[in-house]
């Protein structure tokens, strides 16, 4: 009894360690690369649909490749940020629930529309 109890305990630890390892490895491997880019170009958002992982914090780099300033806005993500022409900003996005989040360029709302899809 006692012996098998110890085995069960060790197996549990091993499984737990395995789970931890599986859980952490992809994030460690990504490191600083866990960032995604949206670009304003010709008053449009590229890509119009950006895929990001759900449930993981990530960096969102928003570039404004146009000459004129743009206001990056997303009521879904609670972001409102002016980006000067020819510059970029970096935003920290807290883990998202799976789903789609709308983003717009407020100064060119007719054309600058896109969404971030968390999977």
């Amino acid at each position, binding site marked *: 009894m006692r012996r098998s109890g110890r085995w069960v305990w060790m197996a549990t630890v091993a499984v737990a360690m395995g789970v931890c390892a599986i859980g952490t490895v992809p994030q460690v491997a990504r490191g600083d690369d866990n960032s995604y880019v949206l670009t304003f170009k010709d008053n449009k958002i590229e890509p119009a649909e950006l895929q990001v992982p759900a449930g993981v914090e990530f960096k969102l780099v928003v570039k404004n490749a146009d*000459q*004129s*300033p*743009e*206001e990056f806005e997303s*009521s*879904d*993500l*609670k*972001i*409102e*940020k*002016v*980006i*000067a*022409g020819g*510059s970029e*900003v*970096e*935003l*920290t996005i*807290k883990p998202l629930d799976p789903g789609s989040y709308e983003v717009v360029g*407020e*100064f060119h*709302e*007719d054309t600058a529309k896109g969404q971030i899809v968390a999977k």
Partner: protein
Amino acid sequence: MDPSSALIVFREVLEAALVVGIVMAGSKGVAGRGLWVGGGIVAGVLGACAVAAGAGAIQSAAAGVGQELLNATILFAAVGMLGWHCVWMGRHGRDIARHMSQVSRAVVQGSRPLYALGVVVGLAVAREGSEAVLFLYGIAAGSDSPALDLLRGGLLGLAGGAAVGAAIYFGLMRIPARYLFAVTTWMIILLAAGMASQGAGFLAQADLLPTLGRRLWDTSGILSDRAILGKVLHTLVGYDAKPSGIQLLFYTTTLLIIGSLTWILGRPNSPAAPAARAA
């Protein structure tokens, strides 16, 4: 005329115009208010140009969160000024209303914190105006539409915003004098609560505050805060279709603090009020 530029400028100046309208109504019968409010608008426009001109520098300041910090600072400064005004009005508003009907206004005018309202107007115009300036600058810096068309659209949007500000002012002027300050004080408290919620939103965006739940509820199906009515309510009562937890916390806390201070200090037999009542 470019309709989209008119709409964008209108949306940007709407909030500032509403603030000016309410502040003007809330300072009815006080000598020198035109000067303070007018001065606030002029300073605000200059501030807006300065913020727009320094947009690039602000953007990269404070490790990339300069804009959020500036917005939050402006908003919380305005909240402080509005709160101070409400508390002051709670103590003296009744007397001003009484004096107004007695045509002997001079007694209370000297001590009125008009500078607080002037500063609020300046801050609101600077913050909202800077986006309108950036937008119009973008047009001037070269775009597909003829610049003159867009400029006309911009002026139309500005006029539209001013008209809404005037409408709320003249609407409030229809309220009988003895209720006017009670109404404007509560409107200003709601205005302040909305600004506090917005300020908290910026600090959460900068990752300096937790969101406490990114989205507590979503009423954008009923009224989007991108619609004009949603935008108006956003300014007047702090309406947000998808509020975060931290926003709700700041909203209710501001409402409770300024509201209870105004109420406590404004009670007829409050120990804090006798000086004004004697006058």
